[in-house]
């Protein structure tokens, strides 16, 4: 940071939303600057306008829907807001570049990745073909891709998510732009991959002196890489300052709320349950996908290999692992949304693994599940009340009794009972997740499975829903199976932890001891990869208090 040259200077930027929207402006009077060799994180919850800010800089907003009405954006001192498209096109790539959240869709699936990098050079430079190819290998090596010459010839589907995101970064860096805009580049990635990509971005910024504008919702990520932080909320800038200032000296309540919502990696003390018979257990549960094809044997994926678990009443078992570890498969087998290939699923001593759909129906009420996506878990065409009473009425509860119970449950999950006749689109994500919990509780289950139930929620809402889940577990004496990829979340709510990798359970034990003293190599890697693990998010808050 010896070079204080300002690369990006945003002053009083205001972007108007289309007429029928819930507020007038997407962003209002945003001002901050990004210097060379500096990482500025724009952090905020969904709807804060952080992505709109990034897209306005790149000139990528849909022209009829989002119109900048005031302010200026200076790139190296030149105005780039509302300049003609051809001029903007020349700047993109050469002087500023962007990487996106979804590496699966940001690359063209039918063009070799090397050619996609070369395309940038072809458009913006007059390099010869051999010069271009040499440069492609050079940038690929720059983003630490192994065996660059052969990987340049592969198609996107042949690469992993992390490798694709590296290709995206290579494309962005091919022309050595002054400004790199990263819009949630690690949100769709696993923790271990996320840690690598964050390291890479930091490393590149250090080596090339690139100015980085990094958009994220995760304060853990911010703590890991940011030099400066801009906090946004509902289209307005709450405050900006250095990382250190934000963590330790901020007096803005919203910033402090965001920071304190990051769950600590240290599990709180919990009384370990050892008494009582397990209400849910599995014995060598096996699920394999794609075993038989029409023409010979297809590719076989072992989603669950001899999984054994036990949950008692009033206990929460956390299942953690990265994508593809088989944690959701186990959950879906237990709810019997998919049929296991072998093993036993014992609910209160009764094996349900092999039951026919008909024999299964009476057992269904004992095990309930809450899904990840609050926007798709409720039928948009049915009022939430109808969704909640559907289950009990299937089992012969009268309509009046079911609705009476639904009203009570709405209060249990912290919603107004009068909202029962509203439709899902009238609720926010967190509220919908509460409704889903109410729907599950309406069945008076013994076992509640939360399949990434808080992963799609904003941090502040996440904390509340976690609290609620823990509360209902206590109040209704439920056995809870909590599936998550987020070790911070798992630390807060789970009594015991089960770590899965590629369909296998690699470690199992009381949360506190697994976190303090991980036995398996993979558990250690996972714990090390948690973003911002060295930062104590409670320190700053208490210091201010």
């Amino acid at each position, binding site marked *: 940071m010896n070079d204080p040259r300002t690369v990006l200077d945003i002053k009083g930027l205001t972007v108007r939303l289309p007429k029928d929207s*819930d507020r007038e402006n997407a962003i209002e009077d945003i001002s901050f600057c990004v210097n060379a060799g500096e990482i500025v994180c724009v952090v905020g919850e969904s709807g804060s306008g952080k992505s709109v800010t990034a897209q306005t800089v790149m000139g990528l907003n849909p022209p009829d829907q989002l119109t900048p009405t005031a302010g200026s954006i200076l790139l190296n001192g030149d105005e780039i807001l509302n300049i003609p498209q051809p001029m903007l096109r020349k700047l993109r790539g050469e002087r500023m570049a962007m990487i996106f959240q979804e590496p699966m869709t940001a690359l063209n699936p039918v063009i070799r990745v090397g050619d996609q990098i070369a395309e940038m050079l072809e458009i913006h430079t007059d390099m010869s073909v051999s010069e271009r190819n040499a440069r492609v290998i050079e940038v690929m090596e720059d983003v630490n891709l192994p065996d660059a010459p052969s990987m340049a010839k592969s198609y996107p589907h042949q690469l992993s998510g992390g490798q694709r995101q590296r290709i995206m970064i290579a494309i962005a860096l091919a022309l050595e732009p002054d400004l790199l805009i990263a819009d949630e580049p690690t949100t769709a990635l696993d923790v271990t991959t996320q840690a690598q990509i964050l390291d890479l971005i930091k490393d590149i910024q250090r080596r090339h002196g690139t100015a980085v504008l990094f958009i994220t919702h995760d304060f853990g990520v911010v703590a890991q890489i940011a030099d400066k932080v801009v906090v946004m909320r509902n289209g307005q800038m709450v405050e900006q300052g250095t990382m250190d200032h934000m963590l330790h000296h901020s007096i803005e309540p919203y910033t402090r709320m965001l920071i304190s919502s990051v769950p600590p990696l240290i599990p709180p003390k919990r009384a370990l349950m050892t008494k009582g018979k397990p209400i849910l257990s599995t014995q060598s549960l096996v699920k394999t996908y794609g075993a038989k094809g029409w023409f010979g044997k297809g590719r076989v994926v072992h989603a669950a290999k001899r999984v054994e678990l036990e949950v008692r009443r009033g206990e929460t078992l956390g299942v953690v692992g990265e994508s593809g570890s088989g944690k959701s498969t186990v959950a879906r087998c237990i709810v019997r*949304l998919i049929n296991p290939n072998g093993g036993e699923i014992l609910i209160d001593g009764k094996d349900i693994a092999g039951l026919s759909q008909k024999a299964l129906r009476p057992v269904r009420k004992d095990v309930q599940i809450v*899904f990840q996506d609050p926007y798709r878990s*409720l039928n948009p065409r*049915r009022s939430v009340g109808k969704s909640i009473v559907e289950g009990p009425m299937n089992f012969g509860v009268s309509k009046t009794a079911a609705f009476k119970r639904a009203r009570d449950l709405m209060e249990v999950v912290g919603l107004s009972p009068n909202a029962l006749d509203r439709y899902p689109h009238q609720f926010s994500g967190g509220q919908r997740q509460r409704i889903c919990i109410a729907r599950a509780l309406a069945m008076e289950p013994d076992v509640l499975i939360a399949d990434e139930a808080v992963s799609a929620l904003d941090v*502040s809402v996440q904390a509340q829903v976690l609290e609620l889940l823990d509360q209902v577990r206590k109040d209704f004496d439920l056995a809870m199976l909590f599936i998550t990829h987020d070790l911070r979340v798992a630390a807060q709510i789970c009594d015991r932890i089960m770590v899965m990798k590629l369909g296998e359970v690699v470690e199992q034990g009381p949360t506190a001891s697994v976190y303090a003293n991980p036995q398996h190599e993979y558990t250690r890697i996972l714990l090390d990869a948690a973003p911002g693990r060295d930062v104590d998010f409670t320190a700053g808050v208490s210091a201010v208090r």
Partner: protein
Amino acid sequence: MNTEVLPVEDDEIVKSNKPSPWVRLAKNTSVRVGGFLFSIILLMSLFASLLTPLDPTDINPSNRLKPPGYEGTLRDNDGNKYQVTARMGTDTLGRDIYARVVYGARISLIVGIAVALISVAVGTFIGLVAGYFRWVDAIVMRFMDGLMAIPAILLAISLVALSGASLTAVIIAISVPEIPRVVRLVRSIVLSIREEPYVEAAISVGTPTYLILWRHVLPNTISPLIVQGTFICGSAILLEAILSFLGVGIPPETPTWGNIMAEGRDFFQIYPHAIFFPGIFLSLTVLAINMLGDGLRDTLDPRMEGKF
């Protein structure tokens, strides 16, 4: 983690600013124009007897092949003479083409609407079952593929030939080739909806399969089916006219637009009006229905949203 669980009050609930589908429909030009034309033709067919005093099947050999605007005399059952104007001329048997065209609208609309309803109803049922139960799918869809491989007009001709010419036979003959199209549409929707978490949630609270299909899956098929239904209606009207024109449709004495045109085919070069007038009405009706369908698709299909 020290957050309080607070009850949600009414003002915290998100309000949607999106106009309702009915408002968007009423704003769409295609829907307005198509709907206006279609209602005129519908009214014409309903009140045909008010629009012409003549019987469309009355044969009058002395008034054969008269041009439009011809004024002739007719005798009623009591022997009283009265003056009539053949606004669209007469055909080879002296029948009034205007009367036949006006009454013919009834047959066309009956065929169009009946075919749309039958093929959508049957197709939806088969599609729901095929989409939800995988083992049924393998069998049913192969049969549907086979059905789709035969050109609709040939299939219809052979079906009518098998059962003899009548209105019912024509309706069934036109419906059968349309069914696979509806089945495919419904099946594809079911395949994506059955993976939705809310359907899985319904399974896990023990909702029986028929209720899942009825409550959670079927409502999602309604708007695409309304659109598909209008297009089927339009093409069924055309197909009926083609069958009649080829002489394999509804019996020739019944006034249908296809029959009138078939009747006028032999003298087309000298008396084009016998084909011209029913042709105009046929095109207008199909145009109206297709415009209505286009407009419905633009407003009801979420994928088209924001494109106009």
